[in-house]
């Protein structure tokens, strides 16, 4: 009796699965005589979409044998779906991804196709600088084609700085503290942070650590070879804590997102924010002019013995190992790497185009300054959530959010972070 039920249930399931499989196959057949389809799944949606439509259209015009179709999705939706698409053996041919630990993760899971030939045979390697190419290499092979480069720095309201009597942007930690004090004295919160989505707080860990312990130590920490209970980490948190204790932060960072925090700087309720160059996308909404109303300065030096380093993410495109049409996918990558698409794609986003041939005319004053700085800075670091594997970053991002509320507890928070990170590493 019971067995009968089970049998029926199983038959039912099988029947429906078959029905759907047949349905799906029939649909696939219909497309047989059309140009070969190349799918591109990416998170350059909304304000980030840049010139993706143009890029795709141009590729299709120049390559009539292929039909490149792209699906822009929201960041969050992208993160949830790409994993299962990859594992299900039915991935898009091309998809966007973040350089660093995230690409490393799927390279290690054997989900990506190496694209050394794109760089070597099609001359793409001539289009990118050495350091950018390093960001594209994993386990000795190229896997990643960078599309945008962003840079994290202090963006400040010039009027507020003038009112507070700060003649030049601070270059050392001491000058920075003085500047904060001056801004506080005119009744404005020196620093705005909007960490509701957690990640904006990470730069407050990245930079102090890079400026005190240096890029090499940080790389060890990100790789799980150093501990969050080390004195180096405690010192970085100590710097951050000092600023919070002195009341330099606008209240309730965890209540706002990065855009709201940027607006606080825009309206002059706060003096500055430590954020990526993508905040320039808010220019129209806030109604301020780069260079006129706001400017940026790099995170001040703390220890002159430590080499300078810049923080920022690279966004780009990778090819799935199970891509149905690798040849076409790689051709599309070559097309994307060229100057024209790079210009179209990066204009108005605040980003730098990784292609070295793009003209300076596409940049505003601030971007020009950023470009000049990036050309000379000796070290480039990915921000925390891209530098360490996602499960570990999850632990750390929570720790930053908690620290913002309870800076006095930072030793306990660090101890808990270490044990959480250890657990996450052991599960990898």
């Amino acid at each position, binding site marked *: 009796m019971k067995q009968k039920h089970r049998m*029926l*249930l199983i038959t*039912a*399931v099988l*029947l*429906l*699965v078959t029905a*759907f499989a047949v349905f799906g196959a029939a649909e696939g057949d219909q497309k047989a005589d059309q140009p070969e389809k190349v799918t591109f799944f990416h998170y350059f949606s909304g304000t980030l979409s840049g010139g993706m439509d143009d890029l795709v259209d141009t590729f299709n015009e120049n390559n009539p044998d292929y039909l490149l179709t792209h699906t822009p999705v929201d960041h969050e939706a992208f*993160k*949830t779906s790409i*994993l*299962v698409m*990859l*594992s299900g*053996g039915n991935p898009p041919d091309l998809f966007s991804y973040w350089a660093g630990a995230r690409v490393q*993760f*799927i390279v290690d*899971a*054997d*989900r990506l196709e190496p694209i050394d030939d794109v760089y070597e045979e099609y001359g793409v390697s001539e289009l990118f600088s050495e350091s950018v190419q390093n960001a594209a290499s994993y386990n000795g092979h190229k896997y990643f084609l960078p599309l945008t480069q962003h840079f994290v720095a202090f963006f400040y309201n010039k009027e507020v700085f003038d009112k507070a009597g700060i003649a030049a942007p601070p270059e050392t930690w001491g000058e920075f503290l003085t500047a904060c004090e001056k801004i506080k004295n005119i009744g404005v919160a020196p620093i705005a942070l909007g960490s*509701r*989505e*957690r990640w904006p707080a990470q730069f407050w860990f990245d930079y102090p650590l890079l400026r005190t312990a240096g890029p090499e130590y940080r790389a060890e920490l990100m790789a799980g070879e150093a501990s969050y209970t080390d004195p180096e980490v405690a010192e970085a948190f100590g710097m951050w804590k000092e600023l919070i204790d002195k009341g330099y932060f606008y*209240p*309730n960072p*965890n*209540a706002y997102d990065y855009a709201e925090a940027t607006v606080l700087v825009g309206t002059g309720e706060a003096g500055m924010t430590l954020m990526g160059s993508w905040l320039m996308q808010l220019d129209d909404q806030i109604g301020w002019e780069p260079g006129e109303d706001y400017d940026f300065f790099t995170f001040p030096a703390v220890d002159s013995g430590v080499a300078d380093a810049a923080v920022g993410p690279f966004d780009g495109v990778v090819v799935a190992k199970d891509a149905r049409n690798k040849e076409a996918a790689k051709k599309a990558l070559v097309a994307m790497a060229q100057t024209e698409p790079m210009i179209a794609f990066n204009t108005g986003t605040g980003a730098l185009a990784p292609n070295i041939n793009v003209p300076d005319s596409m940049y505003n004053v601030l971007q020009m300054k950023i470009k000049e700085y990036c050309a000379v800075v000796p070290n480039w670091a990915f921000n925390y959530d891209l530098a360490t594997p*996602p*499960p570990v970053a*999850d632990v750390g991002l*929570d*720790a930053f*959010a*908690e620290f913002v*509320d309870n800076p006095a507890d930072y030793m306990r928070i660090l101890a808990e972070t270490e044990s959480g990170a250890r657990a*996450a590493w052991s*599960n990898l």
Partner: protein
Amino acid sequence: MIQKNTAWQFLLVPLLVYGVVIVYPFVQTLYLSLTNWDGVSQAYDFIGLRNYRGVFTDPNFRGAIYHNIIWVMIFLLVPTVLGLILAVLLDRGVPGAVFFKSVIYLPMIFSYVIIGMIWNFIYEPRIGILNMVIRLFGNPEWNYAWLAQKETALLAIIFAASWQHTGLCMILYLAGLSGVRQDLIEAARIDGAGGRQIFFRVVLPQLKNSTVVVVSLTIINSLKNFDLVYITTKGGPYRSSEVLTTLMYRESFWNYRMGYGSAVASVLFIIVFIVVYFYFRSVMREDHRE
């Protein structure tokens, strides 16, 4: 025999859909919970009950369970009792009862996405309604961030959810009240019982069925909620509003731990199963008595 065949004719397609959408994926979840699948690799190992052992030693899981328990308890207190009180008051023929009922029902038509958004208008620290009121009557400097402080984030979400859930409780109690026997109330009144006595001794016992339904639905709804938490805090700040559903989502889709996420889902199922079991048992018992 002939009857049976006809019955299957009617049941075949619905069962197919049910099997594909619920039964088959459910079995797969149970299976995945015994593996270490990361969601990306094609290969994964069968690791027995290791995920479950991990679940029960995970402080984040314990936190999520604890938050779910708080949610259930507040949900059993606030919207349920409020729904009962409103049902009793409005059942008595307060002038404008129809209008007042509509006001209480109204939140039920909003999605959680919209509820999350409009409660943000209340909780926002700088210009939110709640802080504006507090500034008006008390501390003019008040700028508490209700959804961003670990002490209040969960409570603020539960309160918003209660706002929506009260209407359902009231409907269910109103339906129960319509079945209350007026002759018993009259008899008690003639015996000299006061309003309170009548309510607790005569009316409430007759609402037992409604109460069983309200309590079960309330428990299940508080365990099921994902949308509202996801939209308001995503379980933050630093997991202070994490519940089982958001934990499952986080571990599976953010942290590349599908096996572990499936184990969390399975535990959620077991808890829900226990509640549903008791619900059906008590409902069935009523059935047999009739």
